[in-house]
């Protein structure tokens, strides 16, 4: 068994990622000009929740940063600070730094640099650090005694904090750990400390339930605590502290008489924080926003995930929207119960195991189908109809399991938003990132492996794609450049586009550069598309000077090979003065593949369907010889090199004649074509990919393997790779 504490810590960091995501979302909304309370609350609560969790784990640096950020957001929330463009920019920077802090805390890295500057800048906007806020925070070693009024307020243990007693609610929280709280790795100490971090707190330890020492079971909780809490706290915040332990302790939360001038409502524990009291103008805004702010990010986060758990995506938004109308009633549960019911966190290993098993099931089902076919049963026998239903079920299960691995590209796009911010600041350009289709789902592995190439493309777009502000204005464009990052599903693949509205590719310059580097002959006649594709050649960089942003020798060729290794293709379109679009087309999953099963020299091979443009039977007049060893075929008005798969893979010598043979016309990323000779096409089907790399390393021309219905192993070809390393021999040298 793994360490429960480590698990809780891990889930805290997963939650942090989600909170950071909702933080970014809210900041984007603010950036678009919406300064409403709700949105600002989302920002505040995201930062606050991270702080709270970090406090429980003693992550001091993270807590300190989050606290100062939160303090500023609190000022905004209370309307004391205006949201200007400058402020929004700093909010974004602070959010980026918060993310760095979270990562540093998680991975044990160094604290990010520059945090102090951003915080100071924020605090300067706010009018200097706000000292009295610190009094409410457990991590601050600074306790401003002078502000404490020590008023007797409803109980001799309840010392009021600062002057705002009348405005501040007081809460009585009774907390009794149940068996299981400690056993699940939780600790009353952390919970009490987190509660005390919310505001001015007094704690009473109730030992009445403690048995005599002789009868005491040291591992059964027997103590209980009552915490009286004052400060700007709503019930949701208190509930949040108990997020992890709701089911292993009893919690009674009660609003105290006198705290906040609200009428006393004893005996109503568990009610939300009396949202609509007319004499609490500033408070009413907060709890009323409570359910919204908790639900809204949750709904946004869960929505794309929800369809993954089933095959019906439609009900998800409705379900996510449902909690909103239940306003105050929902507040009581808003501490996270919502999220728990909508989604389940599952270890990735378990999903992978499931994916693997379903793969085996598909193979097994194919084997069964084959045996049944060989047994010669009549097509309408009950076995055959049963098998057909079984096949459809298998296919459905496979699709559903693949959907579990699918994730929306949104987090990836958010990372790109940060890259744009940083890159544009580095080259001093005004750039706005527009994202489209964030909810598009792609296999998790694809998303992870897309991050680096996409980062590079975005940097390129900022650095090279967009012109400087002056040039843009001179060309009659808005000074702010726009980079559009979009994702969409198109015919079973996902297409991701990076589009800029810059000056387009300067083809003259590109060609000149390619010639000067000896990449193309001087007298080469290249089409526009061919010139554009020169960008993907290794070692190509058009930047006259190497900037520190891009052009560090890592060119688009690296991007291209990363995309290709994912089974994807990348293409460029560019129009002078209008902009450049890089388009990446990727398979939805890396676990299965639609392939054409072919026979060559007695071997069975699978060619990915995505690589095949068309198939044809060769006629005598189609084949032209080119040199002593090489043939090309004449097809659709062009000449395409002919490759004998059997010869290239070493199964046989080149044949004397290919007349009557079948060719698969394949296309490469650069648009060039190749014709592969096969003996027969067997069928077209989905195959489960079984990696070979771990056992055999990289085999030229072979992407992976699969197991066919008859139990035979078939290699899955990688046509572009095959052609790259091919000899091209299709004739026996006489």
């Amino acid at each position, binding site marked *: 068994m793994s360490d429960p504490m480590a698990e809780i810590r891990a889930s805290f960091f997963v939650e942090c990622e989600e909170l950071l995501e909702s933080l970014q979302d809210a900041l984007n909304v603010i950036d678009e000009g919406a300064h409403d309370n709700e949105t600002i609350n989302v920002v505040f609560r995201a930062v606050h929740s991270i702080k709270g969790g970090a406090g429980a784990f003693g992550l001091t640096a993270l807590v300190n940063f989050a606290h100062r950020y939160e303090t500023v957001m609190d000022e905004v929330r209370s309307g004391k600070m205006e949201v200007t463009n400058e402020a929004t920019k700093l909010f974004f920077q602070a959010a980026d730094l918060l993310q760095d802090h979270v990562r540093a805390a998680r991975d044990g890295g160094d604290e990010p640099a520059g945090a102090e500057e951003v915080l100071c800048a924020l605090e300067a906007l706010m009018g200097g650090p706000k000292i009295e806020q610190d009094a409410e925070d457990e991590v601050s070693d600074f306790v401003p005694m002078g502000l404490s009024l020590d008023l007797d307020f409803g109980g001799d243990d309840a010392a009021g904090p600062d002057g705002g007693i009348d405005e501040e609610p007081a809460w009585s929280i009774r907390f009794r*750990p149940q068996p299981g709280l*400690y*056993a699940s790795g939780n*600790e*009353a*100490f952390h919970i*009490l*400390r987190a509660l*005390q971090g919310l505001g001015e707190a*007094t*704690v*009473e*330890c*109730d*030992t009445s339930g*403690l*048995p*005599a*020492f*002789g009868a*005491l079971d*040291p*591992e059964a*909780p*027997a*103590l209980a*605590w009552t*915490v009286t809490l004052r400060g700007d706290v709503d019930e949701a915040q208190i509930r949040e502290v108990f997020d992890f332990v709701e089911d292993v302790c009893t919690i009674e939360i009660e609003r105290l008489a006198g705290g906040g001038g609200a009428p006393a409502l004893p005996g109503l524990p568990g009610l939300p924080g009396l949202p609509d009291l007319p004499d609490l103008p500033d408070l009413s805004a907060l709890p009323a926003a409570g359910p919204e702010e908790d639900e809204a990010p949750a709904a946004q986060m869960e929505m794309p995930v929800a369809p993954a758990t089933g095959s019906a995506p439609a009900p998800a938004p409705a379900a996510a929207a449902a909690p909103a109308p239940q306003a105050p009633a929902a507040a009581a549960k808003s501490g996270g119960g919502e999220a728990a019911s909508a989604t389940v966190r599952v270890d990735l290993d378990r999903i992978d195991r499931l994916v693997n098993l379903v793969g085996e099931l598909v193979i097994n089902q194919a084997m069964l189908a084959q045996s049944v076919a060989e047994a010669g049963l009549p097509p309408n026998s009950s076995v055959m109809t049963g098998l057909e239903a079984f096949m459809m079920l298998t296919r459905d299960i496979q699709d559903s399991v693949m959907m579990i691995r699918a994730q929306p590209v949104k987090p990836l796009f958010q990372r790109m938003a940060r890259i744009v911010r940083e890159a544009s600041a580095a080259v001093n350009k005004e750039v706005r990132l527009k994202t489209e289709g964030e909810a598009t789902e792609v296999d998790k592995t694809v998303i992870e492996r897309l991050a680096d190439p996409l980062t590079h493309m975005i940097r390129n777009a900022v650095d090279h794609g967009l012109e400087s502000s002056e040039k843009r204005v001179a060309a009659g464009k808005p000074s702010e450049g726009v980079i559009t990052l979009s994702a969409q599903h198109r015919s079973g693949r996902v297409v991701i586009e990076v589009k800029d509205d810059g000056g387009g590719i300067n083809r003259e310059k590109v060609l000149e550069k390619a010639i000067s580097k000896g990449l193309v002959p001087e007298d080469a006649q290249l089409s526009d598309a061919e010139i554009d594709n020169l960008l993907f050649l290794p070692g190509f960089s058009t930047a006259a000077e190497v900037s520190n942003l891009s052009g560090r020798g890592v060119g688009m060729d690296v991007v291209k090979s990363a995309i290709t290794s994912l089974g994807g293709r990348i293409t460029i379109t560019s129009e002078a003065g209008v902009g450049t679009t890089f388009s990446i087309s990727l398979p939805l999953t890396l676990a299965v593949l639609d392939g054409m099963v072919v026979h060559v020299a007695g071997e069975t091979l699978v060619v990915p369907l995505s690589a095949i443009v068309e198939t044809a039977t060769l006629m005598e007049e189609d084949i032209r010889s080119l040199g002593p060893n090489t043939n090309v075929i004449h097809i659709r008005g062009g000449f395409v090199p002919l490759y004998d798969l059997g010869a290239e893979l070493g199964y046989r010598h080149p044949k004397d004649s290919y007349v009557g043979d079948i060719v698969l016309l394949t296309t490469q990323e650069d648009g060039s074509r190749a014709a592969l000779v096969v003996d027969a096409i067997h069928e077209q089907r989905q195959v489960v990919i079984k990696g070979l790399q771990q056992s055999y390393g990289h085999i030229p021309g072979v992407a992976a393997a699969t197991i066919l219905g008859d139990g035979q192993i078939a290699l899955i070809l990688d046509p572009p790779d095959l052609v790259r390393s091919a000899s091209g021999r299709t004739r026996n040298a006489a």
Partner: protein
Amino acid sequence: MTARIALAARLDLPAAAPLAEEIRGQTGSDIEIDASAVSHLGGLCLQVLIAAAVAWREAGNALTVSAMSEDFTAALAVFGLTPEALISEKHA
């Protein structure tokens, strides 16, 4: 004679039962508990200490907690207790 028990640094769930055992092993004698090494005090070990203190007092023996580390007293405060309250009859 006075028995001495040195508390471990982490007084969490795994430490609770051994701590209770160790204290029970000294039934009948005075105990001086050394809390100088404590860096974390959890709720379970806290209740062992409180229950032991009650039992010792009732039996007329002395149980003292000495050399409390800063973390120890800070944790007591979080739990709503003072060093005195820990071993006296009245709890906060």
